Structures are given as C-alpha cells and as structure tokens.
C-alpha cells in the first residue's frame, strides 16, 4: 500500500536513463578490468622455467662472421665481477651429434637432427625432482621452446591435417634420443618436462651434458656461446652500457613485453576511468531522480511519518528500488561481459594457444564492490533525505 502511494511521480524515462547509463558505465569498467586480466598474461607470461629477472647475454655476430662467438674465461670473469651481476651461468652445448624421433606406440614418424644445451640447474625454475640425470639413467628430461610447439601446431599440423597438440600431450609423448660421437652410439628416452619462451634452445640438465660431452666428444672445446645472468635490477643503466661497450646482445623480449604491458595497463586504466566516470554520472542521475521523487512526494512522505511510520519504513521502497536496479545492472553487466568475452577470447586463443584463461572471480569482486559502494551511498542518502523531511 505504501508502494502504491510512493510510486506516484516515478518517471520511467529518468530511471531508464539512469539504468542505461549505469549499465554502460558498469560494463565499461568491468570490461576494461577483465580484458586487462585476460590479455596481460600474453605480454608478461610467467615463463615457469626461466625466471623473468634473468638476462641472457650472447655475442653479437659480426657482418662477416668475424670474431669468436664464444665467451672466453676472462670475459666471463669480467662479467661476473660487475656490480650488477648477482650470479652467472654459462650455456654448455652438446659437442656430438644428436638425433631424435618422436612416435606414438613405437611407430617413429617424426625424426630430426638436433642439439642440446644446458645451464646450471640453479637457473632452471622447474620441479627439481624431474630435472636430474645420473649416468646409467635411461630417461633424460628436456625443456623445449614454446615456439616449437607453435610452429608444429600452426605450420606443420595445419598443413598436414594433423591434430593440434597441447603442452600436456607433448609431455606424454615418448621421444627416442640417439647420441653419436667418438665412435659410440647411445639410445635413451627423452621426456618433455616443460616449455619456455625465454630460451630458443633445447635444454637438458647440466649433469647430462657434462656426462655426454665427456663420453661422446671428449676432446671438443666447450666454450659457451651464451651466458645467463641474474641481475639485481634489470633496469640498471650500467647493464645496457656494459653490454654495448663489449658488443654483446641481451634478449630484449622482456623489455618489449614490459612496454606492451605498460601500455596495456595505461589503456585499460583510461578505459576504466571513463567507465567509472560514466558510473559516477549515472549515480548522480539516480540521486537527482530520487531527490525529485522525494520532493514531489514530499507531502505523502510527511503524512506517512505523521501517522506513525518510521523514516526507515518510509525510505524502504525507494531504497529497494535503487538497490534492486543496481543489482540488476550488475547482473546484466556481468552477463553482457561474459558474452563479449567469448568473442575476443576466441581470437586470443587462436593467437596464443597456450594462454591460460583468467578467471572471472576478480571481475565479479570488482562489480560487487562497486555495487555495494553505490548501494550503500544510495541507501544512506535516501534515508537522510526522508529523515530531513
């Protein structure tokens, strides 16, 4: 009955205006937030194998191929003694011939010549129980560059009508590794235990390289061509200067990804800001509508208070109305968001098949916080307005 009284003078148009504006604002805020969360891992993918604050240093190869591509002992010692260096490890390459074939159920249908490299185990950020090799073991753990999988999935599988394979499946495939050198041949199984974006090489445990180089290429020179350096602060200017002076290269991927993430952050921030602004304005539309409504129904509200209704009871219909609308906006925005999301996620997945889907928990939380904040203010303002009649 109170509702019958108080719904007088409600302007559907004003409320529709508020509703749409608030929906738009909410949707933009939530979309920006979710998009940022979905896309960010693409730029700043945690590698899972090589920590992001390691730099990989190699020698720049001259135009004519002059100059040794390997690091001498003194060069390594010099780099190790730099103040920005925390620790340093050398890449050791296999000095013998390696071939590898991959097959399902013993049928070898994919074979290639390849090589191995190793870095000190301390630089490999993977489950160390898997990352071991002792002489006599029949299985060697391997870490592959993630791009190899992409090449297979998008180049090879696509054109040969083969199924695309995921990282999980690769780990289950048996590889046969054949080592040849010094007149000997040795067969063992290889198992992929991880993937990395940081290293374009096939990584095996250092103990395996030491054993196999000694066994199959006892006389070869194993000077490293690349070094892995843990630095205190990757943005330190001295690193760039040192690298430039000595004609070295460092992988700039990380730097580029950092910039992209930064722009993504700025863009999402701006979009979210716009969304918040719209939400804020729609909040004012609602407040003005409510003020107007209270003003127009002033006498009715007063009379209700005079015949013994409490301000809380009189405020309740308008509070329910606004909170209900806010809730509806939240639910609708989340629904729309999940629909919109499927569109861009498909595209993203096509580009980055290894991308892990971010959960929507965060965005639900953000929406709920926004909803609660706005609702609490609405409830409080209406209550105050009624109490001041």
């Amino acid at each position, binding site marked *: 009955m109170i509702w019958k009284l108080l719904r007088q003078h409600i302007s559907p148009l004003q409320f529709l205006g508020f509703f749409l504006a608030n929906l738009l604002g909410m949707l933009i805020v939530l979309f920006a937030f979710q998009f940022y969360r979905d896309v960010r891992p693409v730029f700043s993918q945690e590698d899972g194998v090589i920590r992001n604050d390691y730099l990989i240093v190699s020698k720049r190869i001259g135009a004519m191929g002059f100059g040794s591509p390997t690091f001498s002992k003194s060069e390594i010692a010099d780099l190790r003694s730099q103040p920005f260096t925390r620790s340093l490890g050398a890449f050791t390459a296999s000095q013998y011939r390696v071939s590898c074939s991959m097959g399902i159920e013993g049928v070898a249908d994919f074979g290639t010549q390849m090589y191995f490299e190793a870095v000190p185990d301390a630089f490999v950020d993977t489950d160390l129980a898997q990352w071991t090799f002792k002489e006599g073991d029949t299985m060697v753990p391997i870490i592959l560059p993630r791009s190899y999988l992409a090449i297979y999935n998008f180049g090879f599988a696509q054109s040969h009508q083969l199924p695309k394979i995921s990282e999980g499946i690769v780990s289950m495939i048996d590889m046969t590794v054949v080592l040849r050198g010094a007149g000997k041949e040795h067969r063992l199984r290889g198992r992929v235990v991880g993937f990395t974006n940081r290293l374009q090489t096939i990584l095996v445990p250092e103990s395996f390289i030491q054993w196999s180089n000694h066994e199959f290429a006892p006389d070869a020179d194993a000077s490293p061509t690349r070094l892995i350096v843990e630095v205190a602060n990757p943005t330190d200017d001295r690193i760039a200067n040192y690298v430039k002076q000595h004609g070295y290269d460092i992988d700039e991927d990380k730097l580029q990804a950092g910039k992209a993430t930064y722009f993504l952050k700025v863009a999402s921030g701006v979009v979210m800001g716009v969304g918040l602004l719209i939400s804020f304005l729609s909040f004012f539309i609602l407040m003005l509508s409510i003020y107007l409504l209270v003003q127009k129904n002033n006498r009715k509200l007063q009379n209700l208070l005079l015949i*013994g209704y*409490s*301000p809380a009871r009189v405020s309740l219909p308008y509070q329910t109305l606004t909170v209900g609308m806010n809730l509806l906006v939240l639910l609708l925005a989340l629904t729309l968001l999940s629909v919109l999301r499927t569109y861009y996620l498909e595209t993203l997945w096509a580009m980055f098949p290894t991308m892990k889907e971010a959960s929507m928990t965060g965005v639900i939380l953000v929406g709920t916080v926004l909803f609660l904040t706005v609702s609490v203010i609405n409830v409080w303002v209406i209550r105050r307005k009624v109490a001041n009649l």
Partner: protein
Amino acid sequence: METIRLEHTFPAIFANRDELNSEVWRQDVTFERGKLYLVEAASGTGKSSLCSYIYGYRNDYQGVMTFDGRNIRNLTTSDWTKMRQRHLSLMFQDLRLFPELTALENVQIKNRLTGFKRKKDILQWFEELGISDKVNSKIGLMSFGQQQRVAMMRALCQPFDFLLADEPISHLDDRNSRIMADIMVEEAKRQGSAVIVTSIGKHMPLKYDHILKL
C-alpha cells in the same frame, strides 16, 4: 503516558503580545489520561499550533511541554514514531488523507502499521457513519464531511493515551456529529484514554471534564 503538561507555553509568534487572555497559553496546564477536554478558540489563536506542538511536528513555541515530566524537546525521531504508534493519536484539521487511496485503504494504511483493529470492525464503523457505500471510493472523490469521518476512523486505529481531535466535526451535520462522538468516546473509554477536542464554535456534544478557552 499519564499526563501532558504545558508550563508557560506559548507560540513563538505571540511573544510580543502582552495580553493573551488565554487559559492555555502562558499558563500551567495539565491534561490527564482518562478525561475529556474541550479547547475552545477563536480563529487565529493557535489551536492547530497547539496540536502540532503536542504531536511533535512543530516546535516553534516557548516554555516547556512535558509528557509524564519528560521534556518533549528531547524526544528523538524514533521516540516520536513510537509515540504516534502507541500513545498519541491526532485527527488533523486538514485530515492529511491520501487522495490516491480508497477510503478503506486510508484507514488500513494506519491499521496495517499497528494491527490494532479487525477489518470487520472498520467496516462496521463505515456502516455506522453512513458511508459504507464509499468504502472503495477514492478519497479525492469524497466530500470533506465524508473525509472527516474517514480521518477519524484512521485516528482510532491505534492504541493511544491521548486522542487529539482538531475540529473534527466542522463539516458534519448534528446526527453524524453525534455518531462520531459516540464512536470516539466509546473507543477512548475502552482504552481509558483522554480526548482533547478543539473547536472554533460548533463542538462535539460530549460531557467534557474541562473546557479551556485558548
């Protein structure tokens, strides 16, 4: 609540008047539960002001007003809400009914709050007051006299210690005044409460315990 006391109370706008010549303003007056009072007044002497001060929606007065010794200026909003649900009822001179609602809804909007009367009893009143055919009519379409009867029914739909009736019969004929007076006094007696009626001439035919000139 047993007593309403006015201690040297008068409307603030009367502050410059030397001669008030009133038995209420600037006097010490006590209204007691269980009694019938008539406050007679000429127009412009502050009759409705008195009701609004006691009912707590205006406080532009000087002096002190107390309920059972408690200064009513100290009552909180929730105190007043409780007061208007359980202890004090006012039949407004301007009625303050809701034109969008029907006659019955106007009574029920109060009764739903207090849960005090059964619908049957309310319909019985409509019958007695001769407006049973208007139960479901919009208040806006009824005459002022008919509206006065609805307003009175609404005022009776709650427990009260004091019932203030501000010119309750200004637009009623003698027969209906009589019926209304009977219903009102019967309800007041049943509750053991006081009735304070104001009037500017025509007044309810009751056996008043005190008649005060405002």
